[in-house]
């Protein structure tokens, strides 16, 4: 019987950043990551080969977006008359 009230209380006062915008509780690993996942701030250098591959695929995605700014001259010639 008490569960709905406890849940509302949790949403309003404990759960950070969702309903109570004035709450300054910040998101921790447990809020954003899958259960039992955490990371430590220790040296974590990725292999150059891996990173290069990652950068190539990211740059491709970025270029696809930037290409949307290129105009098709034929489309610009259309007269809009209806």
């Amino acid at each position, binding site marked *: 019987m008490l569960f709905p009230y406890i849940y509302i209380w949790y949403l309003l006062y404990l759960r*950070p*950043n*969702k309903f*109570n*915008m*004035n*709450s*300054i*509780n*910040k*998101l*921790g*690993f447990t*809020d*954003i*990551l*899958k*259960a039992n*996942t955490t*990371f*430590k*701030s*220790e*040296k*974590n*250098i*990725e292999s*150059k080969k891996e*990173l*290069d591959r*990652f*950068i190539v695929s*990211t*740059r491709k*995605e*970025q270029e696809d*977006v*930037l*290409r*949307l*700014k*290129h*105009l*098709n001259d*034929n*489309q*610009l*010639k*259309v*007269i*809009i*008359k*209806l």
Partner: protein
Amino acid sequence: MDVLKYNPSNLSKELSNKHTDVEMVKTKNHFSYFKNYLGVDGLNAKTMVIEEEYVSKDFLHDYASYYAFCFTHYHKFCRRIHFFSRAFTLEDLNKAIVGENHRLWNSYLGFIVVNPIPITMIGYTVLKTYSAGKKKDLRKYWGLRDYKIHLFGKVLTINSLAFQEQDNVLAACATTAIWSMLNKASVDLHTTLKVPSEITKDADRLQNDGNRLFPNKGLGTLQICQAINNSGLAPEVRTGVVEVDKHKEEGDYFISNTYLKKIINAYELIGIPIILAIKVPYKGAYGYHAVAVCGHKIADKGHALYDIGPYVANRIEKIYIHDDQFGPFARAPFIEPNGLETQWTLNDKDKLPSYVMNMVVPVYPKIRISYEDVEAIIIGLHRILIRAFKEEFKDPLFWDIKLNYSHCFKAQVLGFALEEKEKLDIVSGSLPKYIWIATCYVGEDKFMELTFDATDVSNAMLGKNVICYFDTDVKSYLKSYLIDNKLGLRKIFKDRSGENYLDFMINNL
């Protein structure tokens, strides 16, 4: 002055004029549209007040430019039909005019001006939106402004966007779409609101085929841009890149739904209607038409929120357009994967979709950084975050990228879940007038907010603020990941600013 009960029959009579009889009015798309819009499922109008001998500035200019020189005697005065959601009589209205704060005025829905010309008589029209007055609504009419309407000595205010039909002489569809857009943009003093004939004159000196400008048969995208530029705004043009697969014609491409949704979401807070050149089904073929987008509706929460990609914009399910061949705020739901269900689609016997061929986003000239420039940066950051946390996020990571005024952003910051010092640092800092804001969410939780200068050059490092909603552990982990991999990651951002973007993140975490 006359007071009539609102019904379709009275509406058709009042929309008619010396040159357009009631039967002709009934065949018009506008009549069907207004009948629904003002009917019980729409604004639910109960009473019409007729104001004769109304001087419409827009029509008067067009009259002086063209109709006064016709041999046929065209009247220069118009009729204005006012709509109210309360039922009342002429006697009630008289009492309300001389009295004070009569509740009849609260039921005002807006007006339609009837121009005294043949067939294309729907003139200056200002009507309330469906959601006016509702506190919570998924409809977002961002292209509206306040109109002060002077009626019998009273001043009534309506939040709307003016609409009118093209007259096929001084204005084509593109002209009226620009005119509606300027109605909103001219709230900013740098933009000039012009009447339709002036907009057409601004577009060019002759028509594209060498014919004289008036009677006007239509404008091309470049002419639309010229007219927008002459009104004090900067046009950002985009053409379609996706091939039309059905009913394909040589050289025809359209703008994808995903891209259009992103652009609408990105520019909504600046509030200037976006001009779309659309390909619509018409008389068994396709024709080109122009409309002004002034709002959109988002889907209910949870509806395919994360499934379609990492952008909040994906939640847009329909747009509201001023279509001069139908009426104001016409719904156009997206047809997935691509296309729109416009009123033209609904009128077509095969219900063929409409496609957006080109779009023109009018912006204030100081806004020089486009949406795509910012999305490219965000793609880099998004992928870095996914990689840094080894794809272990509990919920999908998604982004909301919007252009906004920095003073609006600062006002919002005061309500954010931040320490007092963080808020003061942000609001007391100097920012350009226009900024891009990219908000990152993990599921429904706000994770991070970044701001970028919208007035700079695209090769520069545009970053201004990083606001984090995560705790010190997450912050220090992300910071150390970026420092450790700075050398390898810098190439992820375009041009020579790559390293600066990583420094911007590191220094602000």
